[in-house]
């Protein structure tokens, strides 16, 4: 029976839709479309109002998404890409595959944000998550001086890892290499992606893990566990802004525009906090879900503009590698 279902699923994709329902293809990352992510709820809500068929294609994480798009090029059947972050938008723009979105929503981001091609749909602060019992360091220098053990993600394979790299660069500039050298003995290991790092932290392999200030909310809301919190750093916490963009080669440009607008509507924005565990880009009228008010909010937000992030990446990576590869 399962086999039949599987085969039917494949057929459904292979055969072009028989009815003349327009189809909108959205290329996104894996955890967005998963049964536990925002995908299913968004699909239901958008299909109810657009009279169209919304189809998600999943491609690993944010970085894999960009690679996938470049592989497909102008032949891509995707109309919208959803899930890049600002450390990747400069590279994405350079492909020339994106069209301006032409929308000017009043975003509730903690920093001003302007981008002709990419629209934010949610955001979060990177932070080191730890047990409430731990007395957290106040900044990277204090962390480096402490004997706390941390797990981080690899900037070469994951977007949080890249975010941390840019965080240290944005906060310390030329002193970044020195900070990394100081952190070397605190780093237990560097994992390929977020979930390995977070899993190791939950198993007690480290005192702190690079994640988001919103991570404690998932424990609080989904598991009624209030034992985790996030450390705020005096130099500020770096932002991850997740964006979406419309492809110039789309055969459904109007539908794509409607989808971008829909993603910023209350219907979609109210789904994101408790499925994607990020702040909505445009706070819905009903406010944030219960539990989010308890989260630590950094006073200072850091974010390198897309072009600076792109330019800083290569040298920062070399610095990072040299400092840690003792």
């Amino acid at each position, binding site marked *: 029976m*399962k*086999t039949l*279902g*599987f*085969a039917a*699923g*494949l057929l*459904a*994709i*292979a055969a072009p839709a028989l009815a003349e329902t327009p189809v909108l293809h959205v290329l996104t990352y*894996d*955890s967005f*479309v*998963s*049964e*536990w*992510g925002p995908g299913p709820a968004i699909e239901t809500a958008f299909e109810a109002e657009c009279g169209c068929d919304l189809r998600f*294609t*999943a*491609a*690993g994480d944010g*970085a*894999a998404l*960009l*690679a996938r798009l*470049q*592989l*497909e090029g102008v*032949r891509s059947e995707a109309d919208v890409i959803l899930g890049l972050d600002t450390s990747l938008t400069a*590279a994405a723009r350079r492909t020339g595959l994106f069209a301006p979105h032409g929308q000017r929503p009043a975003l509730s981001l903690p920093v001003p944000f302007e981008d002709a091609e990419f629209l934010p749909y949610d955001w979060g602060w990177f932070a080191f998550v730890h047990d409430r019992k731990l007395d957290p360091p106040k900044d990277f220098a204090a962390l480096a001086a402490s004997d706390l053990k941390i797990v981080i993600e*690899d900037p*070469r*394979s994951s977007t949080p890892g*890249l975010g941390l790299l840019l965080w240290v660069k944005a906060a310390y500039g030329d002193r970044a290499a020195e900070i990394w050298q100081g952190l*070397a003995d605190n*780093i*237990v*290991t*560097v*994992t*390929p992606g*977020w*979930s*390995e790092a*977070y*899993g*190791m932290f*939950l*198993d*007690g*392999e*480290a005192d702190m893990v690079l994640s988001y200030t919103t*991570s404690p909310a998932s*424990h609080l809301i*989904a598991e009624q566990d209030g034992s985790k919190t996030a450390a705020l750093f005096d130099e500020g916490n770096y932002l991850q802004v997740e964006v979406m963009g419309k492809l110039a080669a789309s055969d459904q440009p109007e539908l794509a525009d409607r989808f971008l607008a829909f993603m910023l509507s209350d219907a979609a924005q109210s789904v994101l906090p408790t499925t994607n*565990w990020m702040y909505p880009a445009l706070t819905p009228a009903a406010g944030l879900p219960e539990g989010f008010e308890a989260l630590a909010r950094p006073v200072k937000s850091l974010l390198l503009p897309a072009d600076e992030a792109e330019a800083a*990446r290569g040298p920062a990576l070399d610095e990072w*590698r040299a400092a*840690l*590869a003792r």
Partner: protein
Amino acid sequence: MARRAGALIAAGLAALTLAPVAVVMARAGEARLAPADLVALRFTITQAALSALASVAGAVPLARALARRRFAGRGVLVTALGAPFLMPVIVTVLGLLAVFGRSGWLATLGLPPLPVFGLGGVVLAHVFLNMPLATRMLLEGWQSIPGERLRLAESLGFGPREIWRHIEAPMLRSLLPGAALAVFAICLTSFAVVLILGGGPAATTVELAIYQAIRFEFDLARAALLATAQVAACGVAVALAGLFTLPAGFGAGLDRAAALPAPGGWRWGMDMAVITLAAAFLAGPILAVALRGAPALVALPVPVWPALGASLLVAVIAAPLAVSAALLMALACTQGARWLEPVAMLPMASSQLVLGTGLFLILFPFVSPAAVALPVTVIVTATMALPFAYRILLPEVRRLEADYGRLAAVLGLRGWPAARLLVLPRLRRPLGFATGLCAALAAGDLGVVALFATEQGTTLPLVISRLMGAYRMEAAAGAALLLVMLAFGLFWICDRWGRGGTAD
């Protein structure tokens, strides 16, 4: 017949593994390896060589002890040796950490924790994953020593030392290089283990450099070049292993069962100590995985079940495909087509990411990748599993050819009758082992197919990674345990069938 079929399969295999690399390379201009890439290449080879040496060094005494001792639970232990190899990488790593890590069992007992991060940790994990596999491969060798030789040894009054010198050492000479080569090739492309336990950028492998080149830099030419370097390293290893491999030359026996002499005294103590230590080393992390997953097993989220079906389907189609292809190639290789040997090892050294990317580039202009998800998954998984089946079957096929090749030629025994009367009955044990291994590998594979994933065709490994991504670590542990059970169940059924024909 086998020769032509083997050559055909080899050609297909070469096309399947090399064409994607060529396509990826053709997409971009010229590429150069950076100094950091050479450091990565050196580290990759070092860790793979150390892992291979440590694995076979552990496997020889363990296989020998298992071959000459009989004790309660021996059969279970021999089957369970298949388990570590089949566990998903992230599950394995968390299991190892639960035992050897900072908050692990050893630490709670007050024992000093092992250095689980860094080169030591990488080798530890690789030994955990591959030593049991090597042990099973060597055990095959001990079990295929003809009973007549053992009886002759007994009547000549051979002690353990003479048996080692005249029987066991030549047998190992024919097997050990191949087993070490298999472990080396697996560790060469190992990605997540090295990255998680490596401890930082000092432990950068070629596979990670490829990942970075494709994901962040979209430098396809460099990725293809790195993949080629990886294949070349494996090619050198194949050649080296070939230099050291010598046929054992025992001649055919009459299948009379004769147990290996089991010397008493300190040798008994040593054997039992080796078995106990190895069993504890292997059981610890497996037990940890089972304990973590068991509570969530009763209430697994619904999407897990169709994914289980999809994984099972892939395994059931891909395993027989891989094993029959491997058998034909091994037959062709022993009948003179020596050039097949490196080709059969190609998939093991291929970068999964480059392979997936290349196939994607080849197929994308013609079909929607999602539409061919199932066939591509099956073919790629079968390709990836083939070298394992080949390495298991080759020594046995060589022996078959040496022992019965001339007789079969004189009798004109060829084609299907030869398969039915000679090949299948005599190779039942390795065939069962190989099929089980391939089925389990196919159930657990994720790498290549990620690019082709659809909403409908999600397999169990993909569901596990999605659960972890959604902060559902407990459910993920439950699903991972289910995957281990599926893989091990498939392995157990096939291996059981294979061993059904023999005394143990």
